[in-house]
């Protein structure tokens, strides 16, 4: 039961889906199809129903909901903004059809910006922030490959070391009744032999928070490779990058090759090489992903500790991260340089909450990390 004007609408829904995808939302043909089916079942002339139908079908996570809520009023501009339900009665219903001219234009600028090469500024949805995109092409393939091999080798060893530790830690068995019963049937009489199965191993989770601000520039390319390799080698890893704000990059790094991963990163991370607000970024992590932290989680922060933001915020964030997670490791590339003292305000604030403070400026220091990560987690109780 298609409405006559659904044709135009379809094109717009497809375009809106593309806009969401550009901002890192998981939104493919399946979602678009669901959205169109949903629109066939609600009153599309009711702005609220229209919005909710798209919201329920195009988005699959809380984080993406925020992106949706920010973009929806921009794209479907004749519809009243989400934040102002009071206005819907006056102008919303009167609109015959969503004709997203104004908002759509700015969207196309964003979408178009993707085609241009190199480093340039593009408008983001936080207008205050100077958002830059980093050109990764300065890496030569050969360089990538060489460093990559080494980094992967280290990451693999870390992965093995971690899992070995965990297997030894939990060595309990459970009765396998099903197999026991079969044995029983074969031999008749009473239970001849008990069959056991191994209990599942509880896995440690790794949360990686990598600083990609300007001051980290020469290291972050290298560290991203490490994060990529680690995520590939260890199953349970969540990765984030931050400068002035934080982006979850776990899905982007799940690409088959590093180059592909870097491509996706440059598209999804809006503020590569920007300023640094560690505290605010960590707070953002806590707001959106606090649930990832538990006593089995090891948090690794890769940063030089140059924070231009509020140290009070950093203090609160670090305190909570430490309270909720099993271990906090801070890797500072500057720690490798001779005579370096961690005297920056940010570093000073964070240090009391760090279990391991180590260097990360070259491959050797990453090898060092292998031992650190494999060590038994600090015993923590939650704060009472």
């Amino acid at each position, binding site marked *: 039961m298609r409405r006559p004007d659904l044709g135009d609408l379809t094109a717009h829904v497809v375009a809106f889906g593309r806009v969401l995808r550009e901002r890192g939302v*998981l939104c493919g043909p399946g979602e678009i199809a669901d959205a169109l089916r949903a629109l066939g*079942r609600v009153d599309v002339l009711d702005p609220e129903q229209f919005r*909710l139908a798209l919201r*329920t079908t195009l988005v699959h*996570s809380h984080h993406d909901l925020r992106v949706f809520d920010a973009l929806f009023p921009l794209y479907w501009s004749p519809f009243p903004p989400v934040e102002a339900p009071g206005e819907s009665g006056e102008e919303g219903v009167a609109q015959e059809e969503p004709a997203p001219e104004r908002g759509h234009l700015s969207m196309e600028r964003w979408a178009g910006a993707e085609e241009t090469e190199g480093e340039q500024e593009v408008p983001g949805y936080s207008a205050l922030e100077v958002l830059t995109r980093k050109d990764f092409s300065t890496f030569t393939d050969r360089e990538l490959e060489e460093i990559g091999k080494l980094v992967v080798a280290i990451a693999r060893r870390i992965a093995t070391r971690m899992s070995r530790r965990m297997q030894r830690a939990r060595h309990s068995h459970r009765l396998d009744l099903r197999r026991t019963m079969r044995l029983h049937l074969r031999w008749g009489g009473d239970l001849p032999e008990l069959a056991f199965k191994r209990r599942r191993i509880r896995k440690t989770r790794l949360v990686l928070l990598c600083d990609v601000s300007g001051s980290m520039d020469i290291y972050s390319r290298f560290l991203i490779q490490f994060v990529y390799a680690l995520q590939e080698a260890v199953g349970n890893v969540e990765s984030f990058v931050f400068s002035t704000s934080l982006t979850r990059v776990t899905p982007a790094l799940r690409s088959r090759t590093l180059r592909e991963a870097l491509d996706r990163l440059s598209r999804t991370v809006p503020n590569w090489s920007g300023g640094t607000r560690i505290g605010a970024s960590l707070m953002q992590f806590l707001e959106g992903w606090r*649930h*990832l932290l538990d006593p089995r989680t090891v948090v690794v922060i890769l940063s030089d500790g140059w924070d231009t933001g509020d140290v009070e915020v950093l203090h609160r964030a670090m305190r909570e991260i430490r309270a909720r997670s099993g271990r906090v490791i801070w890797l500072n590339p500057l720690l490798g340089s001779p005579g370096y003292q961690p005297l920056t305000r940010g570093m000073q604030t964070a240090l009391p909450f760090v279990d391991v403070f180590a260097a990360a400026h070259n491959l050797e220091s990453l090898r060092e990390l292998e031992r650190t990560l494999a060590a038994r987690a600090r015993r923590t109780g939650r*704060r*009472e």
Partner: protein
Amino acid sequence: MRPTLGNIEQILQALEQEGYIADREIATAIYLSIELHKPLLVEGAAGVGKTEIAKVMSQALGTDLIRLQCYEGLDVNTALYEWNYPKQMLRIRLEEGTDRTVEEKEQTIFSEAFLLRRPLLQAITHHRAPVLLVDEIDRADVEFESFLLEVLSDWQVTIPEIGTIRARHIPYVVLTSNRTRELSDALRRRCLYLWIDYPSFEKELRIVLRKVPGISQLLAEQIAAFMHLVRRLDLQKVPGVAETLDWSLALLRLHRDHLDRTSVEETIGCLFKHHEDQRLVRGPWLDAALAAIHEAQRDGEGLARALSRIERTLKA
């Protein structure tokens, strides 16, 4: 023909009749989940009424609710089916004297009569489409999640001894997650998504009035306003709607007709389960918040309108 709930308005009414105060967002998600025949993934903080959605959905649809509670280490034997071992063992005993071959015996004890149907199998073999609630899927292992994804896609399961069992009616599925870990993108994309936030002042007021019979409008308003304000604090564990209701009942039982420092301190354990949170709330914040609530109520300003102003004052 699958029973449906009609349009979104009817769903809202049905939910309300079942005692669930919902907004259009929730109603739309439920409606589309039924109409598009897709599982509904419900996320949100603990105690905002995620599980309730499935319960109410089954009541409103007039169908059964089958619940699968997830936990770490949940395996196929607990979720799908298990053989009834004691019964098998008895049968083996009974047949000890007979001259049936091992193969024959095996066929008997691994037949449907010896099968224990766990929630997933129950759901797909049910005589009419039930509501299947997969509760706290984030607690199950990644391996189980993949298995579940398979079931949700194919609606059939294979039991080696019996063969493939196809769903008679495809269940309505509700999955809930407290986000203790990120779910796979594959599972997410299989589902429609609903995020339930802490309720607004108005919604919470309606919930309290509805769920706590005998409570006065005055006290209910104070409670809803208090909850609204207290959730803005930097707490270890933000209290949900379940806590609000516990607290309201406790206040009622103690014959309190309004909130003051004493009544809050007496009942603070209903709301806050962390020592630090209790200390934070008991501090000067409590007096300021209570005074502001009472004042707004006295002036007849309407708490709903006063709240954002009070919020700013308290922050300062």
